């Protein structure tokens, strides 16, 4: 087909209300993100009920902004994509219901989309993906190694057994009395610190690509307790650096080992934690050493946004894999089952 096509995508899986319009699967015409972070900061974390309320209040405003910013009319929208899961159920519901309503209103197909597939295919908005590729997904809710043997085919080869990386960062930040969200603060402290307090690394079984961060988190808390018992101040910088080094060491080592084992032609770094400078730098160095191309989307496409949902939905648009108006928000939606060609 020669006529350009436009996907309108909606993402409301957590605390960001986002709508994007993407042309021909890769050209982002608009990508509006309304963050609720200031609202949730007062509570020290995302409050699901408040997130849902905010999504309802923002949804049509953001829809309108995205359509206007894209410079298209609603008549030019060819399909509606929406994050079906995973995420907070009450938050997902708002986006799913709005997307279904739009699909009915405009009489265009609906595409239910996997949030993590979105994080991975955000890379498609900045470059071509070569297969097999290995994606390292690190965010507030996810830590996964995903093998893409072919376009739209997802196989999880490793995942966290307890906390996600972002979660561990937030918990450690809270223990160090740093503001929410904690990731950027720890990253900054770690970069500035002159020394590191050595902390354990959870390698798990020798052949495992899984992760575990709860032991590391406990080690951090134990360090803080020890310092407090001795009446010494906590060396926040050295502790942050020790924590970050442990996380980065494990995550990057496993990613490189997996890339080699599965013959990946590219490594894709995705998710909000991709903003972490320490992680990016180390991964870039290791990939350069191994001669493995590393793709990292720009920051605005790493954190939750709707353009990435359109990028993933494009996989199904091109194959005509559409959802019905009975699409249901699935807080535990499986990535592997969402692969193309399974419908």
């Amino acid at each position, binding site marked *: 087909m020669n006529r350009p096509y436009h996907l309108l995508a909606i993402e409301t899986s957590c605390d960001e209300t986002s709508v994007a319009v993407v042309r021909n699967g890769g050209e982002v015409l608009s990508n509006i993100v309304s963050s609720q972070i200031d609202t949730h900061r007062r509570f020290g974390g995302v409050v699901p009920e408040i997130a849902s309320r905010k999504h309802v209040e923002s*949804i049509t405003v953001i829809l309108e902004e995205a359509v206007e910013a894209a410079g298209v009319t609603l008549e030019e929208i060819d399909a509606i994509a929406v994050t079906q899961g995973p995420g907070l159920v009450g938050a997902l*519901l708002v986006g799913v219901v709005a997307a279904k309503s739009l699909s*009915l*209103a405009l009489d265009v197909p609906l595409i239910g989309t996997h949030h993590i597939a979105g994080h991975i295919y955000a890379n498609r908005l900045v470059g071509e993906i070569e297969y097999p590729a290995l994606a390292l997904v690190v965010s507030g809710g996810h830590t996964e190694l995903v093998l893409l043997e072919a376009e739209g085919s997802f196989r999880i080869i490793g995942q966290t057994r307890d906390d996600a990386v972002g979660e561990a960062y937030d918990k450690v930040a809270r223990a160090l009395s740093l503001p929410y969200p904690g990731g950027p603060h720890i990253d900054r402290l770690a970069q500035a610190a002159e020394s590191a307090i050595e902390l354990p690394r959870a390698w798990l079984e020798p052949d495992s690509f899984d992760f575990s961060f709860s032991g590391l988190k406990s080690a951090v808390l134990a360090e803080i307790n020890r310092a407090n018992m001795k009446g010494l101040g906590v060396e926040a910088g050295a502790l942050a650096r020790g924590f970050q080094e442990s996380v980065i060491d494990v995550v990057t080592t496993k990613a490189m080992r997996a890339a080699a084992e599965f013959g990946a032609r590219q490594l894709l770094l995705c998710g909000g934690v991709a903003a972490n400078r320490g992680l990016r730098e180390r991964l870039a160095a290791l990939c350069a050493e191994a001669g493995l191309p590393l793709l990292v989307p720009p920051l605005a496409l790493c954190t939750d946004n709707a353009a990435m949902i359109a990028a993933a939905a494009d996989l199904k648009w091109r194959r005509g894999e559409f959802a*019905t108006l009975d699409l249901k928000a699935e807080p535990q939606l499986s990535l592997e089952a969402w692969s193309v060609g399974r419908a």
Partner: protein
Amino acid sequence: MDANHREEDCTALALDTSSSVLAAAITRNGRTVDASHSFTERNHSVRVVSDLQDLMKKNGLTRAKVDVIAVGQGPGSYTGVRIAVSAAKTLAWAWNKPLVGVSSLEATAFSAWTKLEPRHAAAAGAAVSDAAGDAPASAGTVADAGAAVWIVPLMDARRGQAYTSLFTAGRNGEWASVEKDGIRLVADWVRQLRERYEQLEASERPSAVYLVGELAFLEGKKGPALDLEALSAGWPLRLEPSVIDAGAVGVLAERRFRLGVQEDIHGFAPNYTQLTEAEVNLIKAGTESRI
């Protein structure tokens, strides 16, 4: 809204998901054209748009023929109310149609009245209060309107509480809001209603006080533990279990629309009647005096 518009035909597409019923309807000029009511075990988000689509197809209703999007604004189940409101806002925005919100409690009360006193309800059309607005009609208007019955919608709000309000329905179809929507302890509320009843002159008293809505919670284990027999002695208190009818949402919305009411689509939000627990705790902690 110009005066001419009020005389024109008005077709509303109506939706309510505040209770256990997924209710959708098409209404035209004060009457229900067709309605669908699904009991989806609080999973309204699955069928909400498909039910609308089915209803439209079945009745040959196209976008061009829709004049108003009508929606139950709550109160009720938080998640439930968000479903209809999100759908209605999006449809109204995409189709560029007026959006009119209606209190889900008023619609529950009006639905019940339509079934209890169909002739009187059908005559309704005269003075209808702006019940979903902020200002409740003064209690004085009850007697003035020659109230025949009181209608008290109740919706379970847990811990012995209910979302509730009070409406009066007159013999000639008068319909008025007397107490605005709120969350109240059921036992206290019934006592207050009774005091209000007893303070009236015998000739001004309603012939019946109907508690309506999904009333099973009144008798459930986690309900308010009312001694209903004792509470209903000496005055005409009647329990009339009922479910909301989306036709009532459409009819009430049409009236509001003809009075010139239209919501700001972007700003429109459910009426939860209460803050979230997290906000309440924050206020208790005294870290902020207001949200």
